[in-house]
């Protein structure tokens, strides 16, 4: 028996276009049964549209199902202007992107202000929490980078870790969307890390040694090794960006695809179990792991491009990579 279309469109999913066709204008009634060009209906953008052709061009129809966040829910009633839509495939409008990105930053700033307010010698609870996090992160990055670089680069790596962790975990809150599920966020972080690593290499090694590091050991192999090393250096930020983006957006699409199964009727059985709840611990685990991996890889890239004369402080890093 084939699964029939979902007669009750879900309010929490964006109407998706599994075959990439142009969407027709939806009517306003949430009870109406609509079908797309041949797949299971993933849902309608909620309660009311203004209707009209120009609004249909503006409604965001991703290819894979995705959840609606509170900005999209509000905007569905208000957006009429075509030029404010479509920044990237996973994000409906520019405004959605800015709102969540800013929310993560504001949350971290407020948390820091609360922790560092009235700092005492014997810490109270919130300052103790802050000291626990900072001390733990500093110990961790000193074990990778060694004493001198560890202290210098703990702010960078620790901030990257906490920031990416906040952004990833925002994706698990019901009406929110993780900013890292867009390639814009992850690529900008990766480009920032790339420039910081290269600047660190030039500053610590001197420009001559920095170029020699690309040339490699046997000098007659230099024309071969030089492009290879450059491609290797360029592949690092690309892999950082794609790893984080793929993991978080994949987990987002997984949850939304499973949530879209609710209400599908196969014969006389109607699926009503929210399968996405089963993958919630997996999403929590992977969000944390990806934040850790980004920060640790930043530290490891800094370590790899540093001058190679440490034998006593950096050996713990051999276990790290």
């Amino acid at each position, binding site marked *: 028996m084939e699964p029939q279309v979902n007669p009750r469109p879900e309010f929490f999913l964006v109407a998706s*276009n*599994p*075959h*990439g066709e142009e969407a027709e204008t939806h009517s306003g009634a949430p009870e109406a049964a609509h079908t797309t060009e041949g797949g299971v209906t993933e849902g309608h953008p909620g309660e009311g549209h203004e209707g009209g052709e120009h609004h249909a061009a503006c409604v965001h129809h*991703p*290819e*894979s199902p995705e959840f609606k966040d509170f900005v999209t829910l509000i905007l569905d009633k208000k957006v009429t202007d075509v030029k404010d839509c479509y920044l990237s*495939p996973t994000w409906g409008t520019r405004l959605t992107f800015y709102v969540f990105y800013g929310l993560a930053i504001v949350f971290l700033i407020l948390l820091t202000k609360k922790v560092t307010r009235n700092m005492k010698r014997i810490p109270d609870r919130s300052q103790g929490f802050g000291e626990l996090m900072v001390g733990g992160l500093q110990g961790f990055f000193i074990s990778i980078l060694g004493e001198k670089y560890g202290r210098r680069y703990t702010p960078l790596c620790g901030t990257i870790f906490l920031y990416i962790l906040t952004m990833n975990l925002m994706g698990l809150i019901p009406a929110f969307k993780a900013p890292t599920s867009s390639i814009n966020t992850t690529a900008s972080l990766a480009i920032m890390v790339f420039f910081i690593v290269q600047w660190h290499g030039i500053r610590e090694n001197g420009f001559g040694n920095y170029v020699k590091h690309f040339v490699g050991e046997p000098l007659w192999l230099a024309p071969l090794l030089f492009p290879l090393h450059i491609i290797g250096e360029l592949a690092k930020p690309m*892999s950082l960006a*794609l*790893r984080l*983006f*793929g*993991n978080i*957006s*994949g987990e987002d*699409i997984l949850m939304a695809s499973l949530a879209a199964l609710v209400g599908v009727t196969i014969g006389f059985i109607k699926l009503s179990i929210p399968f996405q709840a089963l993958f919630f611990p997996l999403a929590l685990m992977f969000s944390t*792991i*990806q934040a*850790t*991996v980004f920060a*640790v*890889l930043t530290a490891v890239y800094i370590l790899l491009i540093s001058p190679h004369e440490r034998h006593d402080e950096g050996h*713990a890093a051999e*276990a*790290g*990579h």
Partner: protein
Amino acid sequence: MDSNIIMNVGFSLPIGLGMAVIGSGLGLGRAVAGAMEAMGRQPEAAGQIQTAMIIGCALIEALTIYALVISLLLIGKV
């Protein structure tokens, strides 16, 4: 898109993704096996070994994620 291209992409995309997953499964199995053995030999270093194992697994998994990203890009075009 041309229906020929659609058929080719629709056929090869899941196969490619499956092959990437095979490689990732084998690699992760070896990594975790090595970590388990090391933890068995020296249980007091288990915390450090576990951290290193998680980081190694994330790096190996990244290769499968690259294949997944390509599939995500082409998911609507088939």
